[in-house]
């Protein structure tokens, strides 16, 4: 048992997902949904608790578990717990018809399994398999409403392009393995830093970055975002934008040694994403697409922080006690808190067609609670104080400045100034436009309204006490 103990969280989650699937037909369908929802919530909580428990008191330097497949480093564990929290949030905020409840919740749990594996991956195979568990669950969740044509279209587009990208990723891994002869990222790191990397390794890492860039939706691998975001269920869109990207970000941390040689690629990713994402959103009128483009810009900001790496700069000027990866962690939490709520809220408003800005008119009057929450989320995404998104940007950019990057934070600041425009348009249409003849339809249960309100309060509270997130990180 002791040997397998570190794998307990993953086991609980995966077996729990199977269990829920089996449980589906056993109960009468009236209470089934609520029943399954609370069970899956309990499973996620148990997983998180186990994760914290098994990692507690690990000796430093943090050992690898599962025969070198997973790391127990605190940052990665913290990431995993955050992703579990997003899954729990989604379980609460989404509702499904009774007969689909089993598949829905078990898919969410499988998605969580993929995330916590990917976030803690310590070898190439774990990265690949974690990513695929995550991706394949997402294919199903995106196409979950198979009765809608657009949903099928989004599902197949994501599936084909993600498959294409993982082909690149896989081939890159093969080349890396061909050069270094090992799957362990730590060993690859040692070998790569010890010798001058040959062209083959460079190509390998380049192809790997294609896969990473696709998952993060960084320009130029961002093309799928608008369509897929548009056609997925609101809560799933939130997960794609937040924790699915976040898991990839966490998985990429061990590869940060690439910054030594490959920083220009990351720099380009970041700059293009910030410029492209913000410019693309300006003329869009479909709300989910606006947020999709904004998510591209946000990945640009995150990559800016990544450039700072995981070490502290010797003569840092701004915020010297915060490393790039810690800033990224902060941002992932801040962004997840905001974007999950925003997409879920749009999901509640969404009608049959694509949701446009015009459809938002009058929501402020029809459902002030939801509109207020959406306002807070958008406020935070725009990076305005006192919402938590403001600090996210500050930490990222100051980390980048400390690492000696000057232009990138500047591009980011200017880009976010441009971006304010489309966030403002959402607010304007929510509150400051007279509604059309028909009132918008807003469907949110009491539970969902409370969940939304809770996360809106959290977004503000984390902005007032941003240190909390770092304390959380230090607790691991």
């Amino acid at each position: 048992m002791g040997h397998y103990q570190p794998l307990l969280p993953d086991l609980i989650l995966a077996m729990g997902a199977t269990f829920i699937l089996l449980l589906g037909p056993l109960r009468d369908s009236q209470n089934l949904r609520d029943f399954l929802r609370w069970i899956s919530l309990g499973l996620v909580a148990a997983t998180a608790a186990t994760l914290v428990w098994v990692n507690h008191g690990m000796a430093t330097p943090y050992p690898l578990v599962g025969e070198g497949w997973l790391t127990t480093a605190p940052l990665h564990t913290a990431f995993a717990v955050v992703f579990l929290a997003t899954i729990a949030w989604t379980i609460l905020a989404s509702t499904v018809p009774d007969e689909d409840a089993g598949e829905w919740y078990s898919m969410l749990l499988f998605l969580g399994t993929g995330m916590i594996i990917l976030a803690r991956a310590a070898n190439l195979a774990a990265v690949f398999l974690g990513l695929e568990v995550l991706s394949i669950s997402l294919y199903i969740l995106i196409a979950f409403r198979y009765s809608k044509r657009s949903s099928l279209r989004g599902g197949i587009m994501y599936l084909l392009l993600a498959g294409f990208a993982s082909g690149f990723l896989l081939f890159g891994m093969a080349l890396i393995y061909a050069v270094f002869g090992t799957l362990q990222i730590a060993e690859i790191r040692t070998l790569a830093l010890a010798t001058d990397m040959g062209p083959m390794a460079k190509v390998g890492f380049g192809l790997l970055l294609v896969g990473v860039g696709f998952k993060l939706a960084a320009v130029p691998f961002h093309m799928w975002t608008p369509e897929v975001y548009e056609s997925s269920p609101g809560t799933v869109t939130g997960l794609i934008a937040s924790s699915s990207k976040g898991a990839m970000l966490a998985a990429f941390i061990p590869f940060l040694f690439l910054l030594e040689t490959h920083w220009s690629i990351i720099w380009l990713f970041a700059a293009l994403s910030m410029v492209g994402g913000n410019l693309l959103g300006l003329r869009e009128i479909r709300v989910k697409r606006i947020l999709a483009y904004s998510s591209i810009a946000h990945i640009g900001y995150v990559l800016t922080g990544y450039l700072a790496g995981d070490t502290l700069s010797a003569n840092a000027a701004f915020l010297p006690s915060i490393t790039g990866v810690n800033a990224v962690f902060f941002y992932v939490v801040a962004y997840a808190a905001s974007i999950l709520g925003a997409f879920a809220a749009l999901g509640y408003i969404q009608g049959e067609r694509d949701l446009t800005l015009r459809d938002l008119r009058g929501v402020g009057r029809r459902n002030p609670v939801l509109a207020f929450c959406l306002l807070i989320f958008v406020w935070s995404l725009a990076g305005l104080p006192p919402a938590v998104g403001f600090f996210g940007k500050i930490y990222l950019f100051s980390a980048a400045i400390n690492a000696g990057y000057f232009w990138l934070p500047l591009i980011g600041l200017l880009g976010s100034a441009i971006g304010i425009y489309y966030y403002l348009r959402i607010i304007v249409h929510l509150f400051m436009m007279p509604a059309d003849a028909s009132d918008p339809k807003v469907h949110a249960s009491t539970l969902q309204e409370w969940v939304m309100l809770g996360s809106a309060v959290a977004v503000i509270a984390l902005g007032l006490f941003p240190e909390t997130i770092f304390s959380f990180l230090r607790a691991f």
Partner: protein
Amino acid sequence: MAQNILFYLAAVMAVATTSMVVITRNAVYAVLYLIMSLFAVALVFLSLNAPFLALVEIIVYAGAIMVLFLFVVMMLNLQGQRGDEATKRPTRRQMIVPGALALLLLILIVVSLSAGTPAATNAALSDPKLLGELLFTKHYLGVKLSGIILLIGTIGGLHIGRGGSIPSTMEKPIDDVTH
């Protein structure tokens, strides 16, 4: 030597059949070409001293996955009749840019391969038993995850496949999702 001849034969066959997959109009032929390509790759595996993988390639890839393709293609009757948009071959003009890009990619990778390749070793590891031991000791987590992936694939196929039996007029609401 015999192994090398086997390799080159298989390689030529693999490239030829794989190219045909991209080119051919008839989907059934495409599937069959792909199966041949997989057989050829299996031969390459043999020449690389990996007989177990050669068998797996044929049984799982060609035998199971491709049969799934064949099944669907037959069901949808994608024979590639004239005027069928779906299986239309890409025109030469449409091929220029992607072709150039793909060629560039190929050249870049191959050039980098030949630029700094360390000498190859000759270790022959053909024993499936060793591989089995490795899988269930060092890589047991991978086996577990593979299992999960197959499970998810099954569930997903079942869930989405259910849509086929439901008339498209019957919308199934998921309230945060549809109304």
